[in-house]
């Protein structure tokens, strides 16, 4: 590139940096002139360990955004492999060459640790773990993936004119009849659900933590055929939860009508443009409001995709698989007797007892003490094998989450430019974590197999 081209790029980067510095959190702290095109989201840590449910939210098996992301990863990896091996040639093209090179490097790495015979046996599992973790990490850097820390954009909706609230227009909607709309806890601690008789929109007549008596209306049906039907509380108790939320499902949806009393008449307050999510009212009907009063808070919906490795369930599942693989390799590689004697090592103890019974008290005592120590060591061995699972799971989860937080805080402090070097770091970390997860499984598995061959 020519010197002028380099200088131009440097200038653009510098300008972006200065704009970002002024518009981000640092600039806000220093009271620099605020640039309104940059919107810095409010950071809020929510569902740190798990993905947020996106589909089937109330069912027994909610589909989280991390789960969808892992499906996408599987799909992309499969398509990648398919594209690379569809038309194989003796002289490989670019894609085929890349995949062959990567595969060869992987095979060499595995064989250098586990040896030729075991290496070939371990290859499918280790390579799967490696490829899956790496694809997860790399795909999560794409802009369509939401940040792992739920960036809740809380928009506060205010009125432009003072007046009295006439009507709240966004109602909770029950999707089917007999849906549970509230949970009541009775005096003796039992929880009872309130069921709605028909589908449709309704309005709550009670608030959370309010106490209700039996037969008191909890909600009333609205615009459906059963308008006006009251939903009664089945038992007396305290309202613990109002399960159905108010949702904004289209841009600029009307949310409240306010009677200003003056020449403006009744005005309608709309939700902001292009913002969907959950709505929570701060006002009630017939409540007077003044100008710029906050009447509702809109909490944005979770992103559809989120890095799969930032879900502890995913990494734990992979750790379970890895530990199971290691133990299975130990079992098949060394035979049941040798494998189990590592955990339950009672041979020395029995020998000591036998000596004791034969009358050799001193020798028997010595052997028994060694035997007891052996049993304890066996227990420790078992615990250390199980601890691997936890450390596998938390290592991957922690590294990926920490990386996301790093990128996110860089974006938060100085938007646009500051995140770029961290993206480079994330590329490295994604590769290294894949190498560590696969490599440790490999090392543990080859140790588990190796012990036996030494003893034979």
């Amino acid at each position, binding site marked *: 590139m020519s010197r002028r081209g380099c200088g131009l790029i440097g200038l653009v980067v510098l300008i972006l940096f200065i704009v970002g510095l002024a518009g981000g959190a640092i600039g806000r702290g220093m009271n620099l002139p605020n640039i309104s095109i940059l919107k810095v989201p409010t950071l809020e*840590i929510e569902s*740190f360990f798990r993905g947020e449910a996106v589909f089937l939210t109330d069912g027994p098996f909610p589909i989280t955004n991390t789960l969808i992301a892992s499906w996408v990863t599987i799909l992309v990896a499969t398509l990648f492999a398919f594209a690379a091996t569809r038309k194989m040639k003796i002289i490989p093209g670019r894609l085929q060459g890349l995949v062959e090179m990567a595969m060869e490097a992987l095979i060499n790495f595995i064989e250098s640790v586990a040896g030729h015979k075991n290496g070939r046996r371990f290859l499918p599992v280790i390579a799967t773990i490696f490829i899956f973790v790496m694809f997860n990490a790399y795909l999560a850097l794409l802009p369509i993936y939401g940040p792992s820390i739920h960036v809740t954009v809380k928009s506060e909706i205010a009125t432009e004119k003072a007046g009295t609230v006439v009507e709240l227009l966004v109602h909770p909607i029950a999707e089917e009849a007999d849906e549970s709309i509230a949970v009541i806890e009775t005096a003796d601690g039992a929880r009872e659900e309130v069921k709605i008789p028909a589908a449709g929109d309704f309005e709550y007549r009670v608030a959370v933590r309010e106490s209700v008596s039996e037969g008191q209306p909890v909600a009333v049906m609205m615009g459906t055929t059963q308008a006006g039907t009251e939903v009664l509380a089945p038992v007396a108790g305290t309202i613990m939860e109002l399960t159905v939320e108010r949702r904004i499902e289209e841009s600029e949806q009307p949310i409240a009508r306010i009677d200003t009393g003056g020449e403006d008449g009744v005005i309608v307050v709309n939700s902001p443009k292009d913002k969907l999510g959950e709505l929570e009212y701060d006002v009630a009907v017939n409540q007077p409001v003044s100008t710029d009063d906050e009447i509702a808070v809109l909490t944005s919906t979770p992103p559809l995709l989120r890095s799969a490795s930032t879900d502890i369930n995913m990494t734990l599942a992979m750790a379970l698989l890895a530990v199971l693989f290691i133990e299975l390799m130990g079992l098949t590689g060394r035979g049941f007797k040798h494998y189990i004697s590592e955990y339950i090592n009672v041979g020395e103890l029995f020998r000591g007892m036998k000596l004791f019974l034969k009358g050799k008290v001193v020798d028997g005592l010595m052997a028994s003490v060694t035997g007891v120590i052996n049993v304890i060591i066996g227990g420790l061995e078992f615990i250390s094998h199980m601890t691997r699972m936890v*450390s596998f799971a*938390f*290592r991957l*989860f*922690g*590294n990926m*989450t*920490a990386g996301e937080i790093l990128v996110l805080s860089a974006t938060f402090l100085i938007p646009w430019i500051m995140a770029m070097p961290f993206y480079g770091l994330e590329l490295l970390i994604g590769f*290294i*974590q894949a*190498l*560590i997860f696969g*490599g440790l499984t490999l090392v543990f598995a080859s140790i588990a197999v190796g012990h036996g061959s030494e003893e034979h």
Partner: protein
Amino acid sequence: MNAEMIKFLAVGLTGSIGLLGPALGLGLIGYATVTALGRNPEARGAILTNMILVAALTEAVGIYALIVSIILAMVA
């Protein structure tokens, strides 16, 4: 000293003390790597591979401390 203050102290101390060990460990790894490279420059590839592996393992310990402090900040 109220509960909130103690909570934030605990969060900060978990992070700082917990990261002390990995920091020392990373320093030792770097020291050992540079020494090994000086003695045997031909083995560069093997040394660097092992270094990255051990460095990432050491770093993971620091990440545990980070997770504990985040949990403290969120839950406690």
